């Protein structure tokens, strides 16, 4: 097969060229998916309010940038501010708890005021995809329709290049993005208190439910707070994704989502 040609079709003699080495087990279980995994070698990006890398529950950051306005244009600059709310630190701490050896990166898209937030989120996501991070946690959404199409394109770019976007679902009766896109893994909360309990939802657009109730999370100044919200459920799935990818590198977002489905607490593969 000519690698210069787009793969719009598969000729008979090219079938042998796309043979894919597969070591799928007869049955996918949690032990197969994440048993012994630590997240090592996996890059997880927290697109949020910044991250306090010094917090003991975060345990260091690999990189930190902020998206800011320079006039009308957005710019990516090194982040010397850290977390402006506490929330990004909370999400990073959750990912670290589940995947202790992953590499954490922060892309701060908040802190420049409410105006233009959609542009900052878009620029931040574009940067995260360009960096080739394995997992991007987005515990945020926008209701602005004019950003939906661009977000959709970015989400598809991420999907095809192998960057997994994990987004918290909006538990309000509003149209918001990007969690509704099928190329994104969307997460809502269940009422349990076990971080290793997650459910596949047979009635999307919310695809998974993970722990989002009464979680002691990392916050400002080395503190911890007890928090509840879908925005804390998403980093649980982001952390689990890092575990799966560290044990099974090279999985596509489609394959990863299938593994999360097969090993969910309600699909029989949770042992």
């Amino acid at each position: 097969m000519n690698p210069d040609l787009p793969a719009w079709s598969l000729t008979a003699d090219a079938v042998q060229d796309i043979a894919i080495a597969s070591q799928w087990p007869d049955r996918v279980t949690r032990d197969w998916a994440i048993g012994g995994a630590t997240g090592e070698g996996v890059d997880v990006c927290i697109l949020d309010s910044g991250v306090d890398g010094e917090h003991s529950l975060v345990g260091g950051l690999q990189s930190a940038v902020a998206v800011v306005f320079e006039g009308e244009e957005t710019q990516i600059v090194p982040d010397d501010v850290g977390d402006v709310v506490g929330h990004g630190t909370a999400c990073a701490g959750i990912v670290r708890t589940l995947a202790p050896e992953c590499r954490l990166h922060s892309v701060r898209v908040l802190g420049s005021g409410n105006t233009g937030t959609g542009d900052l989120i878009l620029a931040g996501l574009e940067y995260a995809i360009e960096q080739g991070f394995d997992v991007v946690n987005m515990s945020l959404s926008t209701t602005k329709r004019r950003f939906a199409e661009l977000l959709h394109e970015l989400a598809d770019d991420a999907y095809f290049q192998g960057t997994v976007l994990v987004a918290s679902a909006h538990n309000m009766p509003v149209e918001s993005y990007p969690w509704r896109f099928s190329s994104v893994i969307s997460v809502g909360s269940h009422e349990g208190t076990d971080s290793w309990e997650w459910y596949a939802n047979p009635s999307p657009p919310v695809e998974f439910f993970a722990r989002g109730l009464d979680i002691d999370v990392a916050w400002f100044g080395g503190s911890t707070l007890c928090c509840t919200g879908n925005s804390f459920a998403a980093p649980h799935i982001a952390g689990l994704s890092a575990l799966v990818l560290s044990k099974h590198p090279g999985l596509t977002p489609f394959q990863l989502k299938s593994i999360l489905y097969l090993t969910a607490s309600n699909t029989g593969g949770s042992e």
Partner: protein
Amino acid sequence: MTDGNSYREAVAAGMLPSEESHQALLQSIVNVARAIFGAKASSIFLLDTATDELVFEAVSGEGEGDLVGMRIPSSTGIAGWVLITGQPIVIDDLQQDPRFARQAAERTGYVPKGLMAVPLVNGENTLGVLQVLDRAKDRTFSLGEIDLLILFANQAAIGLDLLQTARRARAVTERGEGSEAVVARLAALLEHAKDDSAGLRLLESLEAVLARLGE
């Protein structure tokens, strides 16, 4: 401003209930939210897009009477995060957050232990944030509590939308010039007319005057 919207707003201004009625609606929402959750306080923030600030629009309980009109930056803090990300959040031991505690003490003199905050969304626009502070501890907390608060947030969002529309409409008439103001004053006259035919008679006489002027 001569687009159709400003005419409609001008007409609306002549017929709208007072600012006080809208504020009473928001006040009743925070009063009920506070009662349902057995909370120490509840408040509604409105986003002022011109200044990018959150403004206390209604307060029930702690801070009632002092806080309405107070402004905080929209970009930082928990209310700002909720506004910008659109994500509801519940925090149970806020006093552990040193920055929040200091800012709350400086602004309001009251540092809550717990907070529930949801964005107020109307269509594409996030208009503000509804907060409930220090809900009763004897209530078993569940995700249903957030759902309940979201139901209230929907009411509050509609209330805020009405309030903002009314303010824009009044701004049109208060400028006191241009055709929008004329339309608004006519609308107000018609609103107070004793019978329906009075409005038509008024218009007919106006047309006659205008026709005469044009001759």
